């Protein structure tokens, strides 16, 4: 095989492969037998009602919960990782370099006691940056990219509005150029106009940086705008998956039909 063919083969391999992922809470099911692949540059949406297991799935992927069964393979910059078998230091290194996790509530993902600049700079310092001027410059640049006035770099997140906090959290996560971003309800709790701007911003960043992302949400409008492919979950099981437009315009599973038809049209 030539070098070009090898590169092609690498492109063909999924970034993330999830097989039979299962998490039980005692007798109850968190998520059961979830399998999917995520290709480089792709945005995957996971939708479902509250309690359908989508956040459990995301937290299993992020290593915050231990999955009971299944396998997650990640094609990292340094080769293939069996994510669930990673040791604690390896997992944490992965989470602050190649992966990023955007929380639903920015207060969970931000350090509220330090300035916006320090929030963005923390990941840089965690991977060994030790030049104040360059850290600050990069932080200011990223604040600009998420539409926060760089002049507010020394203000604490508490002085920011909810939308700004969420954008700050995104800047903090993307500053080390991760390859895979996990987002848990990134637009939850924001009003509609702020949601629209945030979605626009996330879409732009994902395209510009060539990120792969998994977006968990209950909001079909979010996945319609962001996601290339869609997984629909109900009661911990995947009931349907496919291209976003295909699933939303021609839903096959009864639950998906119900979900699509219950969206209010103004």
């Amino acid at each position: 095989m030539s070098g070009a063919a090898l590169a092609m083969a690498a492109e063909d391999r999924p970034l993330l492969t999830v097989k039979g992922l299962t998490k039980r809470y005692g007798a109850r099911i968190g998520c059961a037998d979830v399998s999917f692949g995520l290709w480089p540059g792709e945005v995957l949406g996971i939708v479902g009602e509250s309690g359908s297991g989508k956040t459990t799935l995301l937290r299993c992927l992020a290593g915050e919960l231990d999955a009971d069964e299944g396998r997650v393979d990640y094609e990292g910059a340094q080769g293939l990782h069996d994510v669930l078998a990673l040791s604690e230091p390896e997992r944490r290194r992965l989470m602050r370099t190649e992966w990023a996790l955007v929380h639903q509530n920015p207060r969970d993902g931000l350090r509220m006691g330090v300035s916006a600049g320090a929030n963005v700079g923390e990941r840089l310092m965690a991977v060994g940056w030790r030049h104040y001027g360059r850290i600050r410059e990069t932080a200011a640049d990223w604040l600009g990219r998420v539409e926060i006035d760089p002049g507010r770099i020394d203000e604490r997140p508490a002085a920011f509005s909810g939308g700004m906090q969420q954008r700050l959290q995104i800047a903090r996560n993307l500053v080390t150029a991760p390859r895979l971003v996990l987002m848990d309800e990134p637009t939850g709790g924001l009003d509609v106009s702020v949601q629209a701007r945030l979605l626009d911003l996330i879409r732009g960043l994902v395209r510009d940086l060539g990120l792969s992302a998994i977006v968990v949400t209950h909001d079909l409008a979010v996945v319609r705008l962001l996601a290339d492919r869609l997984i629909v979950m109900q009661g911990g099981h995947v009931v349907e998956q496919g291209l976003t437009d295909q699933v939303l315009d021609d839903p096959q599973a009864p639950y998906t039909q119900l979900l699509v038809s219950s969206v209010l049209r103004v």
Partner: protein
Amino acid sequence: MTDTAYNFAYLDERTKKMIRRAILKGVAIPGYQVPFASREMPMPYGWGTGGVQVTAACLEPEDTLKVIDQGADDTTNAVSIRKFFERTAGVATTTETEEATIIQTRHRIPEAPLTEGQILVYQVPIPEPLRFLEPREPETRRMHALEEYGLMQVKLYEDISRHGHIATSYAYPVLVEERYVMDPSPIPKFDNPKLSDCPALQLFGAGREQRIYAIPPHTTVVSLDFEDHPFERGGTGEACALCGARESYLDEVITDDHGTRMFVCSDTAYCEARRRAGHRGVAAPPGFAASARGAQGEDAA
């Protein structure tokens, strides 16, 4: 004169053994905070209960003890701890750094160079350098275990962004032997360079927080900083008004209600030794003797 109602150096032998084991572990892993079962001591927390327990575990009858508080041998904390060990251990005490075999200190490292065989015991209020940024103990332990020290840098970043320079002037975080980030107790950062490659054994005891840690002799200790904001030792740029020393750490003393001030050595033993050797500062009266320093201190207080 030993008060025979107590075991030698107050603590019972089993407790001292437990503390010595913690100290040995601390010496084996420089900068690592070793938990120990801190005892109630006959003094309030914050008065050096951790340091006293470490000193008690290290003391032998032939030791000579020196106790300093903010560099001074004659302040309440230093006097009471010195008396405590005079009574419970009957050891010799001194105010001369060179004569002491064990020095218990609060907030300073003596000016006179320490030598091999000496033990410097620090009183530590909060041993965890990451505490104010990360309140969860399991999380800070994990961060130490995994060498995740980005957060310590965040604190210094905040200093620079707010003040234009690293404004932390005491309890300045250090990296011990390229592994553990450590709080050197609230010593002025002026003393930080003395931590590194010190010939004496340095032990740190935190009574309330129940931690002991150590820097063995000749260990590399580096103060954290940024490439473009390197660590600076600081200092007043003044000379001691009593002994004229320029290279020692000086206390600023306000002498009246109109803001008149003088700078004097915080290390009283060092200052007195210099004056005995004939050094004079600008405020030293003619024929000013070493014994007059005590009166000066009382005026200031």
